[in-house]
């Protein structure tokens, strides 16, 4: 493990970790949209009740149920690879947290249907306070889920001896000094992601206020840096060392570079006051570098917390799973279904009744 990720790891471990991280990044994009988006929706409704809403609030309201579905669906793949990589750790943490952990499922269902209610015409005929109260439900549900995942993750990297002690206490809540700063990094880090996706949505629709979006992204980036600083102070030397270890150092550097690119890109957007696609590419590349880099760093922290002995003890299990068939079937269906998803977008874009009428009668006669 003296080489940058994934070099220096046995092939099966490196391969599954790569699959895990790639699918996790996809999940994180959806998750960030949902986490920051539900917070933004709650803030908008608390401020204005159900009286009129800005363009961004409208987009968020329209897209949020799909994005939550996307976050859940995209979360299935990393969850699968997680079970191959850290089976004992992950299962044990699930079992120790028991009902507290299982609660994320009904909570997510409640959050999901609250988002639908928020979109419904029924709500527009109700009092503003009711709309505001309802708008708070999704963010509470999503925040609870995020909290639970962080709690689960931190418990999963504790020692087996600690698990035994924890089990004896019958506790179903685990607290760790890292928990809140770590969660805060995730939470405020989701803001620049949301703003960027929202900016692309505005770009597609030909709407949006570049200055407001750039300001929101800037605040998000500043808060992320602040939360990262708190995390740095609150955490231990091993965790801090993991970021600059040979495994993660290049990725940490790319994450920092990504932050810089995002700041520069949003500055450019703010100055030009336009949501031009080329200008949005700069923060997009920056965000990809930051999210990708931080995802690898997060893994390096986990590996450091487990320690080399425990981590290396997992290798034979990875090698055994690697020997099972089906990879090429997966890759084939991945390609086919990705193409079919593109086809869905193409159908929606090019086959609306309005488009067809326009093609048949371009002059509208």
């Amino acid at each position, binding site marked *: 493990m003296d080489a940058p990720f994934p070099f220096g790891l046995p092939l099966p471990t490196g391969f599954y970790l790569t699959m895990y991280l790639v699918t996790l990044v996809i999940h994180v994009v959806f998750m960030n949209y949902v986490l920051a988006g539900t917070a933004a929706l709650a803030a908008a409704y608390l401020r204005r009740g159900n009286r009129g809403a800005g363009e961004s609030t409208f987009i968020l309201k329209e897209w949020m149920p*799909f994005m939550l*579905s*996307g976050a*859940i*669906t*995209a*979360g*299935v*793949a990393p*969850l*699968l*690879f997680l*079970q*191959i990589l850290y*089976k*004992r750790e992950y*299962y*044990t943490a*699930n*079992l*120790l947290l*028991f009902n507290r*952990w*299982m609660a994320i*499922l009904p909570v*997510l*269902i409640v959050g*999901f*249907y609250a988002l639908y209610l928020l979109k419904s015409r029924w709500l527009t005929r109700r009092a503003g306070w009711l709309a505001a109260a309802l708008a708070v439900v999704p963010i509470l549900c999503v925040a609870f889920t995020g909290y639970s995942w962080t709690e689960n993750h931190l418990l999963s990297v504790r020692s*087996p*001896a600690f*698990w*035994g002690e924890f*089990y*004896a206490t*019958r506790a179903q809540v685990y607290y760790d000094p890292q928990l809140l700063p770590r969660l805060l990094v995730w939470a405020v880090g989701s803001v620049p992601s949301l703003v960027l996706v929202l900016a692309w949505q505005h770009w597609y629709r030909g709407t949006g206020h570049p200055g407001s979006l750039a300001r929101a992204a800037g605040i998000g980036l500043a808060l992320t840096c602040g939360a990262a600083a708190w995390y740095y102070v609150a955490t231990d030397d091993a965790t801090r060392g993991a970021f600059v270890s040979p495994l993660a150092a290049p990725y940490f550097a790319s994450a920092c570079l990504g932050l810089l690119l995002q700041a520069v890109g949003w500055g450019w957007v703010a100055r030009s006051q336009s949501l031009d696609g080329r200008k949005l590419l700069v923060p997009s590349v920056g965000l990809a570098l930051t999210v990708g880099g931080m995802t690898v760093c997060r893994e390096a922290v986990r590996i450091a917390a487990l320690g080399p002995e425990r981590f290396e003890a997992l290798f034979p*299990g990875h090698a055994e*799973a690697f020997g*099972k*068939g*089906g*990879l090429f*079937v*997966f890759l084939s*269906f*991945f390609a086919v*279904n*990705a193409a*079919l*998803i593109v*086809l*869905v*977008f193409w*159908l*929606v874009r090019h*086959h*609306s*009744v*309005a488009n*067809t009428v326009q093609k048949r009668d371009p002059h509208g006669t």
Partner: protein
Amino acid sequence: MEAVLYPVNDFGPVMKGLAIGGLGIFHVFTAHFAIGGGMLLCYFQWLAMTGRSKSARVFLDGYFRYLVLISFVTGALTGVAMWFTSIQVSPVTIGLMVDEFHWLWAVEWTFFCLEVVAGYAAFKYGPQLTDRARLALLALYSFAAWMSLFWINGILSFQLTPGAWLESHSLWDAFLNPTFLPSLFYRTIAALVVAALVAMVLINLAPGFSRNDREHLVHRAAWLMSPMILMPILGIWFVAAMPPDSREWIMGGSIAMTLMLNIAVGASALVGGYALIGLIRQKLFINGATATVLCVLAFAATGGGEFVREGVRKPYTMRELLYSNAVRPEQVAALRQHGLTEIDPYPLRGEDRLPKIDGQPHVHLRTGAIVFRQQCSVCHTTAGVNALPGLTKGWDAEMERQNFAKLQHLKPFMPPFAGTPTELESLVQFVEWWKQGRPDTWPDTAAAPQEYAERLARIRHWLDEAGTRPALVRTVPTDAKGGR
């Protein structure tokens, strides 16, 4: 011996199987509806765009599509819930399944993604699209939903009939196992039936339809139930492909299994009879109340069927690979020598409530409680559903010793006892203590060393007589032949 032991949670009076079974039945019914609902939407879209039914278009734009949307999200979430609950009930089982089938699960995930995107696009943009484009979206959604059934069906049916995989260890032998096809076809028909019945309820509830419209739509939807005529053949095919001992359970060997099978068959026959004779042959109308009753019957059929599917695997969770209590068949012999209680890293919860000997928790009751936790608690409780003290009511301690030692012969759907004579004796003491109302004091089991040693020797003799293999096996390995 090498073993990864997980913490075990106490579900109180609820049997763990009931928790996962209840969720499983709800998940299967919802997921079946989402799959069949997509097919029904495709059919109605085709009827509308080809001019065969004007009211089909009104129905398409109505509540049904919302219901399909709700169900496929609930189906997806309860699917994740099934995963999490499986971890709670038997992490070893789900871990083995993930190791073996992770790429197929990953394939299923790609279809989930397509299902979500196509489903949302059809829901949100469908009414604004051309008919052909809308049909294409609905077809993609239905295809993706059915393919997710295709993949998960192979994984689940493997648990009962691993088939040629036992020799070849080939993924495709595992996936295309003997019950794969009958199960897939049966579930596809069940999905169509559930969707058609729910549609009939909604056709009656939706405002704006005349009686003629309702009759027309009901008869169109009823055609989706016509494949039910194949259900008996598929059912017989499935039963024929089952291992013989599992077949015995449903044919009277286990009264619970037989009863549940009868509920499934009876409810399906009622729904099928009404659909095939009443709705299709005699073209009768069905009102909302009757359609709802048929939905409830379909739910009962799903419940009965899933109960049987889960139950007939006993004593395994993965046939010939893993017993219900997460012990592998090949581990039993070693566990009879060394036991697991000594190496269990998780302390006993509530140890302080046990009677004391010399100020310390009663050592045998403590061991017995850990044996119960490791080997019994996945299916049994101490004071609730399927409670061990209740099941052994009327047995004295000596009967318990012999019956626990020869468990797989006493009840062939039980796994062999996988522990040392001391652990078995401790379990007997633990069960007796519960049967006697958990008194504050309990005699030291080993107080008379001579008698205690003789007791353990008797247990060892019975364990040896019973052997380490299950009562009914597919093949008896050469080294085990004549060993009993």
